[in-house]
C-alpha cells in the first residue's frame, strides 16, 4: 500500500459537523482510485489529511507504510505528487522552470539542478505532450495547457502516488477526456498510483479501478464502479434523481429533469 487511511475523522475548528468521519481507503501501486462526492462532501479534506497538511482527530494515515506526519515535506514530496485544485501565480515562470520546480524534493539545498533533473523534467513534459510549450510563460497558457504543465510538474517529482484534486473543473470536453486518458495511461504496471478527486460520476466510473463515494464526510460505498454506483446511492449522495445505464461495461448516470421525477 502506498496510501492507507484507517478510520480517519477530521473537523475544522468551529465547523458544525465533521468534514470526515471514519473514512478508510487503501491505494496500492499502479492503482487508479477515484474519490467521488458532491461539493462539500469532504473530498478535498481527504486530500489534505492524506498528505499531512492537517492532522486527523481520530484514525491514522500511512504513506508507504509510515505515519504521514513522520515524513519531512521533502521526503513526502518524493513519494506523493499533487496537482492541487487551486494555486497562485504570484511570480510566473517559464514552463521549463515551472516543471523543474517538481525536482525540488530531489535537490539538496545548495546544489544546482543537474543533468538528471533536466532529463526528468523533459520526460515529464514529453509525457503530457507539452515539449512545444517549454519556452512559454506559464501565465500565457490556455486552461488545458496549464493543467498539462501542472501535471508535468507533478510527474517530474517521479512520485509513487499522484493526487489529482478536481483537475478538470475548468476544462472543456476534449481537454477533460485527454486528462483522464493520460492519468489512466500513467497508472498501471510500473507507474504511480493515481488518486483522483472529482464529482464527475460518469468519467470516474469509466476510468477508475475503484471508487470511494463520500457523502457529508462519510464513506457510503467503496469498490468497483459497477458495484458501488447504483441508482439509489448516486441519487442519495448527489441529492438529485438519476437514471442509470451501463455503457462499455461501466454504469453511466443521467440526471433527471425535476418534472419527470416528480411524476
Amino acid at each position, binding site marked *: 500500500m502506498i496510501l492507507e487511511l484507517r478510520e480517519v475523522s477530521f473537523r475544522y*475548528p468551529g465547523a458544525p459537523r465533521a468534514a470526515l468521519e471514519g473514512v478508510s481507503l487503501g491505494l496500492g501501486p499502479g492503482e487508479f482510485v477515484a474519490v467521488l462526492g458532491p461539493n462539500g462532501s469532504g473530498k478535498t479534506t481527504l486530500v*489534505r489529511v492524506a*498528505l499531512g*497538511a492537517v492532522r486527523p482527530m481520530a484514525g491514522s494515515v500511512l504513506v508507504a507504510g509510515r505515519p504521514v506526519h513522520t515524513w*519531512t*515535506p*521533502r*521526503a*513526502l*514530496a*518524493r513519494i*506523493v*505528487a*499533487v496537482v*492541487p485544485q*487551486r*494555486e*497562485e*501565480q*504570484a*511570480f*510566473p*515562470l*517559464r514552463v521549463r*522552470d515551472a516543471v523543474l*520546480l*517538481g525536482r*525540488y*524534493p530531489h*535537490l539538496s*539545498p*545548495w546544489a544546482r539542478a543537474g543533468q538528471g533533473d533536466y532529463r526528468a523534467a523533459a520526460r515529464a513534459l514529453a509525457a503530457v505532450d507539452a515539449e512545444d510549450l517549454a519556452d512559454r510563460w506559464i501565465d500565457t497558457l490556455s486552461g488545458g495547457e496549464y493543467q498539462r504543465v501542472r501535471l508535468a*510538474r507533478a510527474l517530474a*517529482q517521479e512520485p509513487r502516488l499522484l493526487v489529482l484534486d478536481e483537475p478538470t473543473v475548468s476544462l472543456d470536453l476534449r481537454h477533460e477526456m485527454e486528462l483522464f486518458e493520460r492519468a489512466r495511461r500513467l497508472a498501471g504496471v510500473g507507474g504511480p498510483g493515481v488518486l483522483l478527486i472529482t464529482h464527475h460520476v460518469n468519467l470516474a466510473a469509466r476510468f477508475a479501478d475503484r471508487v470511494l463515494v463520500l457523502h457529508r464526510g462519510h464513506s457510503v460505498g467503496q469498490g468497483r464502479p459497477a458495484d458501488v454506483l447504483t441508482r439509489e446511492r448516486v441519487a442519495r449522495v448527489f441529492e438529485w434523481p438519476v437514471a442509470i445505464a451501463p455503457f462499455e461495461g461501466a454504469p453511466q448516470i443521467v440526471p433527471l429533469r425535476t418534472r419527470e421525477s416528480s411524476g
Partner: protein
Amino acid sequence: MLAVLAVAALASGVAIGPASIPWGELLASPIVRELRLPRTLLAFIVGGSLASAGTGLQGLLRNPLADPFLLGLSGGASLGAVLAIALGWGGPWSLPVAAFAGALVAMALVYRLGLVAGGALDPRIMLLAGVAVGAFAAAVTTAIVSLAEATQLRNAFLWLWGGLSGASWQTLGVMALYVPIPVAVLAAAARPLDLLALGEEPARYLGADVERVKRRVYLAASLLTAAAVAVSGVIGFVGLVVPHLGRLVWGHRHRVLLPAAFVGGGTLLTFADTLARTAVAPRELPVGIVTALVGVPVFALLLRRWTAA
C-alpha cells in the same frame, strides 16, 4: 552588464566628489582612503541589503509591491533614532544602536501579531500588523519631533531621509561581518521562495517546509533592513524598485534574482550617494531624497505597466 555597471558605480563613487582629486593621486589621497572608499563600499552594501531584503519579502508576501519598510521596520527604527536624538544620545555609535533596537522591537511585534493558530505565520496579517505598527511608531516619532529643539529637529529630519555621511572603516567592518549571514539565509531559501509563489499549500506539496521558510525569510530580511537603517537612516525605494526591475529583466527565479538584486541595489545606491554628495556641493542631499526622486518616476512607470497588463 550588471557587473560593468557595478564597477562603474564603485569607481565613480571613489573618483567623484566635492574635492576634485586628479586620477593619478586617487589612491594616495587621504580623502579617498578615509572618506570616499569606505563610504562608497558602505553604500554598496546598504543598497544590496535593502534590495535583497525587498526581494525576500516580496517572495514571502507573494506581492511584487512589498518593500523592506512595509512591515513597520522603518517606523521602529525612526522612533529609536529620534528618541536617541531627543535624549541627547545622538552619537556615532549610540544612534545606530538605538535605530537598530527600534527596528528589532517593531520586527518582534509584527512577528508576534502575525502568528496565528498552530504557530503559523500569516503573511496577510503580518502586512496589516506592519502597517499598524508603522503608523503607531510614526505618531510617537512626530510627537517627539514636535517637542524637540531646532538643532535636534534638523538632525532627526536628516536622519529620517537617510544618508551615508557617518560612513567609516569601522561601520563598514561591522556591516561586512554582519550582512553575509542574513544574505546567505535568504540565498538558501531561494528555491523554496519559488515554490511559495504558488501558495503555501502547493509549496508544501512540492516539498517546501513552508513555516520554516517564512520564518527564516522574514527574520533575515528584517535583520538586513534593521542594520541598513541603523547605519544609513531610512533610504526608500531601493528595496522596492530594484527587485522589481530585477524581476522584469531576469524573471522570478530567486536563485538568479537574489544575487542580481544585491548587486543592482548596491549599484543604484552607490550612484545615488555620489549624486547626493556632489549635486549641491559643498552641502549634501539626504540620499533618500535622491533615491525617491529617481524611484518615484520609475515606480510610476512600473505601476502603469502593471495596471495596463
